[in-house]
């Protein structure tokens, strides 16, 4: 029930090398730029949107998930599966205390899947986060980093 109620899906752009991203969840958007995270209504100016207090490095945001992987300590190939038509190897990964499932093609990370207990409440509830990456290298010069994204409303 809680999963159904809280299910959210966002889409956007990520520039890991620049340490920034922007995501549109529909009625809610999120942006990370210059080490600061903002959230609010899609299309709102960054100046008027709500700045998040927590640093953008958690397990529930894309940069945090990606940054876990260089610390991989154990990995085991568990199968093969295509992601968006690209054949991938599926690898169960352990990075410190965190267990992840990762899909890789011959160059990039294509998907990261994390499942964890949503403690402390509700007891026994599981939270899952999936990060999927595609269209590597697309031009994003036209992106406006002064406003929260509104791709979904625009389309």
């Amino acid at each position: 029930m809680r999963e159904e109620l809280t299910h959210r899906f966002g889409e956007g752009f990520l520039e890991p090398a620049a340490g920034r991203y922007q995501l549109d969840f529909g009625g809610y958007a999120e942006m990370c730029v210059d080490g600061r995270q903002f959230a609010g209504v899609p299309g709102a100016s960054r100046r008027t949107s709500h700045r998040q207090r927590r640093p953008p490095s958690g397990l529930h945001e894309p940069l945090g998930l990606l940054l876990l992987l260089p610390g991989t300590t154990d990995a085991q190939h568990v199968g093969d599966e295509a992601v968006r038509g690209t054949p991938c190897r599926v690898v169960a990964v352990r990075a410190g205390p965190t267990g992840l499932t990762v899909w890789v093609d011959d160059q990039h990370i294509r998907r990261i899947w994390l499942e964890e207990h949503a403690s402390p409440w509700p007891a026994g509830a599981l939270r899952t986060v999936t990060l999927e990456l595609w269209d590597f290298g697309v031009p994003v010069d036209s992106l406006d980093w002064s406003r929260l994204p509104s791709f979904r409303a625009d389309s």
Partner: protein
Amino acid sequence: MTRDRARKKAIRARMAVSGEPYSVAARKLAATGPAGGATAVREIIVRADKTHRNRRERRRLAGGAHAPVR
């Protein structure tokens, strides 16, 4: 994360990909050897590095429960 938990997570990951029942996935993973293979670890780290250095990516974040959670 204990090694046993990691093993169970690997089994569940294989179940999700292959559709195999737990016992079959566990047996097949055991046959492939223990986790921690240097090749698999290096593969992940190299891909992560390439992905991180890529200047521009389009990406999607989907939360089976909620993502991100505030």
